[in-house]
């Protein structure tokens, strides 16, 4: 017997009798004989104790380091209340709320999540979540192309290169032409945007804070692209919107990005959660699930999935997107985070991160081998260049239990020697001073 399989031999006998077959094998009789009983080489069954041993052995092969890197994944604090709530079986083991009468729990937190995303972004409407910030941006690109019925999209060279790579993959298969807006002094060259914008452009994709951590001012963008009838797509870190200018105030049409920064653990890159919010006008062009409010037949307030005619299970090949399961439980985690951190806590965590990164920049800036690359203000990432060897720096920091900055040469050979640092509210002054001390003696 095995702990996940409750059938006794007596059960099996009775059930086979009811079915009217003499053996379990008969239930597989229609499968061609030649295909049956393949040989496969997999590990044997592990007891809990053996499994834990194996997992701990694997976990120990990952060094536990203090990160000074962000670049799209930030080491923010996760309050203890989150895990026990998201692990409640009512949330954890349920599926998509297709039966609303017994899924009011899921539907309600989705509604609360949507309310928080719209509050942070200043947009009219949010969906129930996307896989990550990069794929959310790709879905926004599809929305623009489908709405404007044009195949060209402009994208700034200052956006995170991984997001750009995902956009390139998605664009290629839908015959969307991506055109690039040049970067100048670490910022999107808005003159270049002005030159390239035309009636053929379905949308313009920008990011702030951009890949180099710089807070870009996009308040003139809407005006610049309005005549061309292009949609303004802006990728942002959702938590940053508690303190930075909102997309709603800048005339953004589709607001997207990563919401991992609202207290989700690093988890080696996932599961995270993408968000997508837009205007009332574009609501029916959105991908994914949306929860709305209605009444039951006694007149009680109730929550329900709505505008489902956009979705794959109804529209099949004409659906807005193929998305089905996405990151629902992370939407709950983000909602609980935004509840306990609330009105002041998200701002505090973000501003403390801003200050930690600025303190780091000031200290690293004093070192003779390091120079800050750009002068514009930055948020949680800051770019330095050095004449020291990147590998030497990485190894020296690893020895001290520190995960150092990201070497941009990995993405762009012309950026040799450039290092992207980051600090969050989890970093203490002492930790930053230690980092600086290690760098100083190199």
């Amino acid at each position, binding site marked *: 017997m*095995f702990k*996940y*399989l409750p*059938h006794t031999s007596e059960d099996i006998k009775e*059930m086979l009798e*009811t079915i009217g*077959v003499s053996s379990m094998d008969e239930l*597989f*009789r*229609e499968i061609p004989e030649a295909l049956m009983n*393949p040989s496969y080489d*997999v590990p044997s*069954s592990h007891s809990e104790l053996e499994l*834990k041993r*194996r997992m*701990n052995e*694997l*976990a120990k*092969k*990952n060094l536990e*380091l203090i990160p000074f890197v962000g670049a799209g*994944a930030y080491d923010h*604090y996760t309050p203890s209340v989150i895990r026990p709530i998201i692990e409640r*079986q*009512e949330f954890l083991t349920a*599926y*998509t709320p297709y*039966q609303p009468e*017994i899924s009011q*729990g899921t539907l*309600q937190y989705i509604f*609360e999540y949507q*309310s928080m995303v719209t509050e942070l972004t200043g947009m009219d409407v949010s969906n129930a979540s996307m*896989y990550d910030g990069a794929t959310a941006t790709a879905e926004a690109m599809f929305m623009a192309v489908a709405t404007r019925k044009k195949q060209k999209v402009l994208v700034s060279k200052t956006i*995170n290169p991984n*997001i750009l790579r*995902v956009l390139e*993959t998605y664009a290629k*298969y839908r*015959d969307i032409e991506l055109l690039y807006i040049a970067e100048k002094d670490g910022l999107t060259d808005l003159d270049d945007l002005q030159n390239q914008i035309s009636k053929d452009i379905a949308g313009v994709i920008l990011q702030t804070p951009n890949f180099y951590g710089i807070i870009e001012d996009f308040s003139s963008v809407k005006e610049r692209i309005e005549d061309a009838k292009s949609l303004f797509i802006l990728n942002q870190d959702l938590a940053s919107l508690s303190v930075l*200018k909102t997309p709603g105030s800048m005339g953004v049409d589709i607001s997207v990005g*990563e919401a991992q920064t609202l207290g989700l653990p690093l988890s*080696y890159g996932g599961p995270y959660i993408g968000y997508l919010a837009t205007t009332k006008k574009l609501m029916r062009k959105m991908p994914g699930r949306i929860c709305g409010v209605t009444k*039951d*037949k*006694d007149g*009680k307030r*109730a929550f329900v999935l709505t505008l489902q005619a956009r979705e*794959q299970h109804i*529209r099949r*090949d004409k659906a807005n*997107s*193929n998305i089905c399961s996405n990151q629902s*439980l992370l939407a709950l985690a983000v*909602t609980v985070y935004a*509840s*306990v*951190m609330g009105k002041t806590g998200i701002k505090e965590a973000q501003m403390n991160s801003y200050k*930690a990164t600025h303190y780091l920049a000031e200290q690293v800036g004093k070192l003779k081998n390091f120079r800050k690359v750009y002068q514009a203000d930055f948020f949680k990432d800051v770019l330095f260049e050095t004449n020291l060897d990147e590998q030497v720096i990485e190894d020296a920091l690893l020895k001290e239990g520190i995960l150092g900055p990201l070497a941009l040469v990995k993405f762009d050979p012309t950026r040799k020697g450039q290092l992207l640092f980051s600090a969050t*509210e989890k970093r203490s002054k002492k930790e930053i001073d230690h980092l600086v001390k290690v760098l100083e003696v190199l």
Partner: protein
Amino acid sequence: MYYDKTIFELGRKGRVGYSLPKEDFGNYELSDDLKRKEALDLPEVSELEAVRHYTNVSFKNFGIEKGFYPLGSCTMKYNPKINQDMSAIEGFHIHPYQPVNASQGLLELYYETQRILSELSGLDEFTLNPYAGAHGELVGLMIMKKYHHDRGDVKRTKVIVPDSAHGTNPASASVAGFESVEVKSNFDGTVNVEDLKKVLGDDIAGIMMTNPNTLGIFEKDICEIAKLVHDAGGLLYYDGANLNPLLGQVRPGDMGFDIMHINVHKTFSTPHGGGGPGAGPVGVKSYLSEYLPVPRVKKENDHFVLETTNDASIGQISHFYGNIGVIVKTYSFLLSVGKEYFKDISKFSTLNANYIKESLKDYYKLPIESVCKHEFVFDGLKDKSTHVTTLDVAKRLLDYDVHPPTIYFPLIFKESLMIEPVESESKQTIDNFIEIMKTVAKEAIEDPELVKNAPYNTVVKRLDEAEAARNPKVKFKDLQDD
């Protein structure tokens, strides 16, 4: 009993539910022109208020640990507690840019999971990057497209999708830039080979199938279908949503499939999470392995590496390496089950389904008599004289604390009621369900209004779904505007 507050309706101005260390970094301030101007209307609640709120909200949900959840095509099996413990191990929560030398444990776990999936499925190489089943479908179709294009075969713009397929199949085909061609099924949902022959040609990139199909019937002509598609230059894509009854019995790779995805939140018990996060690993035959998305985890001697660029690849489809936290749970389940018990999963899920089917066929209309795999479909009540619909039956089941089966899918029947009982459910649980289903069928004849007006015991009654779509209220502030 009926908790009806949103988090925005709780708390008081000035109340907090968090604590952060005091910062001592100095006087760094954002300049005014970069700052948010609007007020930020988020909750102001204490920690207990928040915890109590979400606990009460959770009571309005039905989960697997509460009761039977035979939702067809979703494989709602027990989600072992150990999976959660394993994914919470501190050493797995590292930064995605941690150098490979300092991440060997996770890379090994990733690689080992690829190998086990490969052995179980008969596909040679896997990627674990896709975030969900539908994401895996999209990746698989991108691979199909690039394969043809790289051979200069650019006319293949269509993908065949049987009418019994999951909705994500044709939707994914569109997102990958294909046109879907629907082929009608035989009465049992299997592919009609004669119809298939008619549509096969040099404009067909491939076919998407799930086997057993969405009616739970095994495509016994699969080898012939594979040969026909391959002879016509197309590839076969396997939708892994229905993999559960095949574990250890027969492998998609051996049936002739070239590409597939696996829904680990279904077959391998990582929870559904109310609609994610899941993961949709994609496997391919070796001749397609270079097309898999980057980054890829590979083994070189005894060292695990990340390959971040490869010109042959379809490209990058996720910011990092997928839902690693979910992959840890997958690996945990794969090791727990192990070689000894995979076959039992397929056997017992199939036994349970056939047992329910035979026990209820006098009460519900069974359109296909043959042996099923892990799931099957009734076409509503057997006696429809009182006009009680599948929706009514589903709603009445709520009163008996059972999660209803999938309803109105597949689209082949008018009153589809799709039942998938999974292997982790005992005979007692299933006998209880059978009795409830019989009771509801009797109620439908004796007191149809009782069933048509159900449910009665839920926190809300039937909803006005049309009103929600007509006048969308999708955030708390929309309610205040009333």
